[in-house]
């Protein structure tokens, strides 16, 4: 049977998509990279080549330095919160509880909601004069009141709290699937050998779930490195840029300030941050798949 005759339609079907992604992803990234090396800093396009000047200026500005610090703090604390909370919820749900499906859905539903909705709601919940502070007063825990996003030193953690509310269900679902994949005999064998429940989780379960942890870190990590909507809707830049992130800076610089070259430079830095995380992962997973 000749397959060659059918090669052509196969190629023709795929070609538009390859062309579209080639232009809209790689071509546009290339153009953004070029703009970031140009002198286009007003409404009038100016594509004269200025080298790395925009980057040098960017890394010198207080706002961008704050953005990079915030990105690191946000990503690390958001990942830690999602991994710990997600694992805890998965272990709790794995204890053969009644109404497991109901709990699972309650922990997961925030994922289906827009970051804008989450931002609007949490802005009210963490408003220092009402929201959660008021609830704490009502239940006699007024001592736990916090200035939340109005205090520069802790403002970023208010956004972490909202982001964790929205996405920790994802790690819960992944860990739960992972836990269910561990053969019961393996756990039974460890118990027969006299392992305590703690030792069982510490030395058997957690190491076995390492691939799940890696996937969760990749997925949540790349979301948090490019976070924009949630911050934009909830706090904006915050007091003294305490909740500002590159995504917000890029948007305001480019589309509010018309400083296109600087905006492009911020975008390229964001892309490089994500690429450091994603490219090795993509390369490794697709290689691995090709071998099997």
């Amino acid at each position, binding site marked *: 049977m000749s397959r060659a005759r059918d*090669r052509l339609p196969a*190629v023709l*079907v*795929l070609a*538009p998509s*390859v062309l579209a*992604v080639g232009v*809209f*992803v790689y071509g*546009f*990234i290339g153009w*953004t990279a070029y*703009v970031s090396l140009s002198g286009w800093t007003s409404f009038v396009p100016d594509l004269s080549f200025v080298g790395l000047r925009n980057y040098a200026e960017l890394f010198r500005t207080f706002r961008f330095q704050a953005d990079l610090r915030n990105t690191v703090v946000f990503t690390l604390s958001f990942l830690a919160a999602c991994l710990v909370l997600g694992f*805890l*919820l998965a272990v*709790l*749900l794995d204890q053969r*509880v009644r109404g*497991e499906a109901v709990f699972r*859905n*309650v*922990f*997961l*539903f925030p*994922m289906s*909601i*827009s970051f*804008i*909705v989450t931002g*609007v*709601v*949490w802005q*009210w*919940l963490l408003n220092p004069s*009402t929201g959660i502070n*008021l609830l704490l007063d*009502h239940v006699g825990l007024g001592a736990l009141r916090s200035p939340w996003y109005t205090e520069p030193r802790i403002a970023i953690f208010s956004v972490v709290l909202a982001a964790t*509310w929205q996405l920790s269900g*994802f790690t819960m*679902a992944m860990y739960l*699937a992972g836990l*269910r*994949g561990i053969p019961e005999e393996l756990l039974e064998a460890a118990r027969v050998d006299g392992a305590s429940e703690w030792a069982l989780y510490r030395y058997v379960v957690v190491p076995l779930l390492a691939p799940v942890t890696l*996937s969760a870190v990749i997925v949540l990590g790349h979301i948090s*490195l*490019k976070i*924009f*909507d949630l911050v934009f809707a909830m706090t904006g830049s915050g007091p003294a840029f305490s909740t500002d992130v*590159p*995504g917000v800076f*890029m948007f305001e610089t480019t*589309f509010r300030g018309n400083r*296109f070259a600087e905006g492009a430079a*911020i975008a*390229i830095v*964001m*892309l490089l941050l*994500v690429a450091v995380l994603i490219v090795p992962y*993509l390369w490794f*997973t697709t290689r691995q798949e090709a071998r099997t």
Partner: protein
Amino acid sequence: MTLAEAALPRPATRTVTPRVRWGRVLVYGALLLFAAFYLMPVYVLVVNGLKSFREVSLSRMWALPADLSVDSFAAAYARLRPNVLNSVRLVVPATVLAAVVGSLNGYVLAHWKFRGADLLFPLLLFGMFIPYQSVLIPLVQFLQWAGQTLGVQLYGTIAGLVLVHVVYGIPITTLIFRNYYATIPADLVEAARIDGAGFAGIYRHVVLPLSAPALVVVAIWEFTAVWNEFLFAVTITSHPARQPVTVALQNLAGSQIVEWNVQMAGALLAALPTLLVYIFLGRFFLRGLLAGALKG
């Protein structure tokens, strides 16, 4: 075993000894406490949305409404209605087109392996992880250029947003369909080929009839992603009458003159369609999420 199957409860084998009874109290106590945390924003949205304007006050945010009223929802709906319709006009064609394109691409990549496909696929997938800020400036230029030179109004229109979502949806929809079609046995495809079916015939008679599960996952994924999207929407549509609901909600929330209970009712309205999809089709939703971790 797929992750979705694995998430089903495992049958009871362990016997519960009386020793761990108080442990059960701890487990349920913790679960209920966490459930309260996740439901707290919903409580605030619903309770305050149902209060009459007379009754609404920030100091009584946590109190139940004395008498039910849908005034806040009516006010929010009056403001957001055109934008909700814009979102519908955006989401429906974007989802349908993305599913069609993804299905065809997935079919080619799963069953018509060609030289270079192993290199092409990861290059395609990279497109779903990029921060869209890194394509935004050329994208706006391109859409404006298309309007001026080709006479196709894409900048500032829902049609432009549809195009953008279909193009940037190619990686994930192709991935989901390809992984699903890879589970169709090669023997089945080979048998159809021996029977004389060609490229189109095999797709039409073998692959397409088996596509329903992947189609549902892709449709739900695209619907949710496009409905909730903000960055493209706010950059490409600047006229308030043309903006999708996420942008309108953001404007509503930033407004000093709109009452906060109307903002909350608006937030609930904007969240409702994807929330309903999640409630009724949640298990497919989860599969789409897990596909984001490159596992089908």
